[in-house]
C-alpha cells in the first residue's frame, strides 16, 4: 500500500516537473512555430497543439533526456501533418514570392529582419527548418539531427546551403557581402538560385502532396 502511495506521489511530481519544463520552453516553441508557419495565429495554434499532444504523451518521455529536442520533434511532426491537411497553406507561387522579397537598396550597412524572414520563406523546407533550429533557436547540431531525424552531417550541409541561399536572396552574395560581380551577373545568379529553390520546393509539394510555404493571400 505504501509503495502504491509512493508511486502515485512520484507520478504527481513527474507531472509537475513536466508542466514546469513545458512552461519554460513555451517562448522557444512559439518562436519556432512562428518561423515554420509565418502566420501568428497559425503558429500559436501549432504551439498549443504541440503543448497538449506533449502533455497527453508525457508518459512516453524519458525524464532526464533532451526535453527540448523531444518537444521540437513533436512540433515539427505536427507541422508537416497539418500542412498536408490544411487548405489555408498554399504552395509557393514564384511570382508572389518574388514580390514579397523587397530589399531596400539604401540598407548597405545592416540587414532587415523582415527581409530575412521573407527570404527564409523562399527556401526549401529542409533548409528553412535547420536555419530556424540552429540559427534562430540555438539548438545544437546533434539536437537538430534528433529533431529532424537525419545525420548530423546532413544538418551541417543543409545549414550551409540554406545560409548561402539566404545571403544570395538578400543581397546577392553567398557570404552576405556583395561580390565584385557585374550587377547583371548578380541578378542572374540570384534568379537561378531562387528558381532552383522554388523548383525544389514545388517538387516536394507535388511529390508529398503538401504545401511547403504559407503565402498570405
Amino acid at each position, binding site marked *: 500500500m505504501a509503495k502504491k502511495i509512493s508511486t502515485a506521489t512520484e507520478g504527481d511530481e513527474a507531472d509537475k516537473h513536466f508542466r514546469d519544463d513545458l512552461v519554460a520552453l513555451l517562448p522557444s516553441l512559439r*518562436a519556432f512555430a512562428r518561423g515554420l508557419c509565418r502566420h501568428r495565429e497559425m503558429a500559436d495554434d501549432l504551439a*498549443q497543439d504541440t*503543448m497538449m499532444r506533449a502533455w497527453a504523451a508525457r508518459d512516453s518521455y524519458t525524464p532526464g533526456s533532451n526535453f527540448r529536442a523531444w518537444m521540437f520533434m513533436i512540433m515539427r511532426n505536427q507541422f508537416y501533418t497539418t500542412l498536408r491537411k490544411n487548405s489555408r497553406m498554399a504552395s509557393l507561387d514564384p511570382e508572389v514570392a518574388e514580390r514579397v522579397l523587397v530589399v531596400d537598396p539604401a540598407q548597405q550597412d545592416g540587414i532587415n529582419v523582415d527581409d530575412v524572414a521573407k527570404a527564409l520563406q523562399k527556401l526549401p523546407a529542409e533548409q528553412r527548418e535547420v536555419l530556424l533550429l540552429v540559427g534562430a533557436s540555438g539548438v545544437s547540431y546533434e539536437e537538430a539531427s534528433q529533431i529532424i531525424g537525419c545525420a548530423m552531417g546532413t544538418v551541417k550541409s543543409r545549414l550551409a546551403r540554406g*545560409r548561402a541561399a539566404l545571403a544570395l536572396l538578400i543581397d546577392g552574395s553567398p557570404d552576405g557581402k556583395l561580390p565584385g560581380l557585374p550587377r547583371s551577373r548578380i541578378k542572374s545568379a540570384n534568379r537561378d538560385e531562387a528558381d532552383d529553390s522554388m523548383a525544389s520546393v514545388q517538387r516536394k509539394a507535388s511529390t508529398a502532396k503538401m504545401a511547403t510555404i504559407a503565402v498570405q493571400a
Partner: protein
Amino acid sequence: MATAKKPRNQVEVAGGDPIAAALRQMHDSVASEDLPDDFLRLLGEIDARIAVKKAKH
C-alpha cells in the same frame, strides 16, 4: 543637428554575421512576447488535471 533615421527592424552588426543576428532577433522578438491568454488557459487546464489526480491519491 539632424540624425539619420534608422530603418525599422534593422539589425546592427559590428563585425558579426548579419544573417545569424537577424535569425536570432526573429526568435528573440517572439520569445519575449507575453504569453497569449489561450496558452494560459491551457496551462490552467493542465494544472486542474494535476490537482484532480493529486486529490484522487
